[in-house]
């Protein structure tokens, strides 16, 4: 009988509960005990295929979360392990990948946009609109002031050198493409990523 990995876990869990204790000769008391065995938690979890976020071996991982992805249910990631089907890592993870759950749930994960005014001694929570409106304003004012349309020789150069950006090398290629488009359309040239460090 072909079984998916998920079905296999469910199957062995049930088999353990229903038969193995019984086979050991516990009879009816075995059945009672079997009913009390807590089903393997992952059988109730939602499995999601993903890739380890750290290095470029790019190990396949399986993320298990509680919640069935219904609109009003908030998923909670409870376990992460190596993907045994992945041709490179074949289920293994290193000391960093094995601890991925701890970075997902790190106490220092950021939850709310924060702002620190000039000379301020602490951050304060702000709304997304406040933060993005202000950032756009600051960028536009500077671009309008410092944009270089032509160089001294009169050549069209259309560059902006006074605001720069570092892009994230753990973000997806799709994120990076959208970032590239937005940044270059502004004429930004002070632009880099982690390739150098």
């Amino acid at each position, binding site marked *: 009988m072909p079984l998916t990995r998920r079905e296999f876990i469910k199957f062995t869990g049930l088999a353990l509960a229903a038969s193995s204790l019984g086979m050991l000769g516990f009879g009816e008391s075995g059945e009672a005990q079997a009913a009390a065995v807590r089903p393997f938690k992952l059988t109730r979890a939602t499995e999601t295929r993903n890739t380890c976020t*750290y290095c470029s071996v*790019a190990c396949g991982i399986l993320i298990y979360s509680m919640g069935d992805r219904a609109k009003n249910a908030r998923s909670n990631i409870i376990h992460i392990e190596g993907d045994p089907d992945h041709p490179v890592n074949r289920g293994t993870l290193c000391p960093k990948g094995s601890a991925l759950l701890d970075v997902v749930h790190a106490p220092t*994960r950021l939850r709310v946009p924060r702002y620190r005014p000039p000379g301020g001694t602490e951050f304060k929570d702000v709304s997304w609109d406040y933060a993005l409106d202000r*950032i756009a304003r600051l960028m536009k004012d500077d671009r309008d002031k410092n944009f270089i349309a032509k160089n001294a020789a009169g050549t069209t150069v259309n560059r902006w050198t006074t605001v720069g950006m570092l892009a994230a090398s753990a973000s997806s290629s799709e994120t990076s493409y959208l970032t590239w488009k937005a940044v270059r359309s502004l004429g930004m040239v002070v632009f880099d990523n982690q390739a150098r460090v």
Partner: protein
Amino acid sequence: MTNTWQDIKNANVVIVMGGNAAEAHPCGFKWVIEAKIENDAKLVVVDPRFTRTASVADYYAPIRPGTDIAFLNGVIRYLLDKDAIQHEYVRAYTNAGLIVKDGFTFQDGLFSGYNEDTHSYDKSTWDYELGPDGYAKFDDTWQDPHCVINLLKQHVSRYTPEMVSRICGTPQDKFLHVCELIASTSAPDKAMTSLFALGWTQHSVGAQNIRNMAMIQLLLGNIGVAGGGMNALRGHSNIQGLTDVGLLSNQMPGYMNLPNDKETDFDTYMSTRQFKPLRPGQISFYQNTRKLFVSLMKALYGDAATQENNWAYDWLPKLDIPLYDIIKAFEMMNNGQMTGYICQGFNPLQAFPDRGKIRRGLSKLKFLVTMDPLDTETSRFWQDFGPQNPANSAEIQTEVFQLPTTCFAEENGSLVNSARWLQWHWKAADAPGIAMSDIWIMSGIFHRLRELYRKEGGAFPDPILNLTWKYTDPISPDPEDLAKEMNGRALADLTDAATGAVTKAGTLLDGFAQLRDDGTTSSGCWIFCGSFTEKGNQMARRDATDPREQGIAPNWAWAWPANRRILYNRASADPAGKPWNPAKPVISWNGTRWVGIDVPDYTPTLDPSAGASPFIMNDEGLGRLFARKLMVEGPFPEHYEPLESPVENALHPKVQNNPVARVFANDRAAFGSPKNFPYVATTYRLTEHFHFWTKHALINAILQPEEFVEIGEVLAKEKGIEQGGWVKVSSNRGHVVCKAYVTKRIKPLTVDGKPTHVIGVPLHWGFTGQARKGYGANTLTPSVGDANTQTPEFKAFLVNIEKTSAPVAA
């Protein structure tokens, strides 16, 4: 990587130099162990430290940080002396026999054309002699003293085993034993793989380190074959992808360059990029550059990019200098030339050289934006954290925005791994609080800017107003929409000239061969063309079937370019198309076409008798032992000392360092001398940590909780430093107070007759997260980069170390 992770198992020799895969890439390193067990491979490690990679090596040789070129040129000398090269490969597939211009010379550490005032070269002599037919001249008998192989022989003649040992501190017998192991792979059916990482890139001569090994691999016939290749074990999970998509100062998607000020119009830009073949019958793929470029501009600007406006060429920013890299950016910040900076998932306060300079630079900005899932040091540079980050908040006028983003588990999308595989991943949960995706945030900033330009006008709004944004959800574009845009589409009905097949307008393209230069195709990143076709998302494929179990797995995810797993694989077969190694063929010629387990890196039906060479991206079709004008410091690698070095350059004292290194005056003033800073330091990662993120994860913070340096027993004894005792490590730029780990893994080397100590500086600490507070290795490192790429020289610099007492608890 030219090859795949699993393909490492096919190697006969694995050389790890410039990296430490066992600790930095553990799950990839298993394929090295597989090679040892299943293929009887020999693992050779050359490293300043006896790393965990070294601990499972068949042979280990120590080396002083920053002297790899001396070692590798010594290897080339050995191979040429012993005639341990793969002759047929070198003759047919490399530029060994091509003749270099008469004026090309090398003397006292400098190549022809050096200008002392500008610290740069006039490279006009660094090229082939051309015949009257416009093709490069060559001498297949290798008699001409000016053919590449003879110039190379002459160039490396100075790198005798004595000289290598004197510069590198590697004992001669160990050096020669490594040479012998490397030379064993010159047999046509034997392969060596080179695994390297930032241990080679983070030097003032980083790019030349890598070229040097690539030359060795060409001489041995190890490029394009199973178990061979140049395999850069890259860092972050998508650093390959960000490089592919061109998120670097001078780059555009698919390794096209931004124009510079001298390329005043589109035709001038194209004139130096559409390489005509330099030898008869060559493919010279970049003849197609115009198709790639026009298709990119159509993806970016849609109908607004027209033949009339040169496909919106003028809307691209032009560069007045080669690079606005990170070192330049922080120099500008310190000079008050920058207003704002956006750090998306990047923590420069811990990651960039000379941390003091980074903090001073950020303090001069009007605004700083950080986008990150974690509370980074950079976002808090303005806050006082004691000696690890002293700051007077009231004096710092920078406005700071700390924007919370999703992490990998909370988004869909693709990442490109070291082996160029684009692998799709799926979202498992929502982000905490009201954190949002980088896509939503970047879109939010862009839409606001576009709205402001619509309402108010302002500086050159055209590219902003006309940027294509045809996404189903413009507020937060679906990653699949973006992936399709990168893949590319037909914009009109396309008829294939050969088959007559019609690709309807709007159809996703199958590959970059369909791209055109008349505006009828679009592709946001041509090397990804084929990754998301009408057949669906190829990056999401999960069929791990592997023909002959040779480590190709062609139907798992998708590899650029064209789902090709081994680059240059035409070179895995001899000129007639017969595999060099019949036991592990990659592709071969069956009389009518190229067949095998991988997608041919060649025209699939091109008969070998046509004489097109395998390196199709080069205009001469050949692998380059002589780099022509492509490297700033010379067509052959030469040993230059790191900018901070304990010794004089033994080869040419007058040219101590890379003669074309870009060093800003303030940075030069901050270099230290061996008199005050007598020890060589090198930075590295630990297996329990990834840069500065994992200290936020509890398990990792427990596994490696605090900052330390590694020193050898001899130095420890000399300086009275105990195991676990406190030390102060200083460079001319700052100091770190931390614990010392006294180890047998680092031994003093004899360099130029003098004992030289190496100090290891792991780099993971900072002042946010769950580990103990630390300074960060970049407190010590110098602000100078590789002359081609400006990758900072983190792997070789000078420090002093003194015993100190425990800091008073705060």
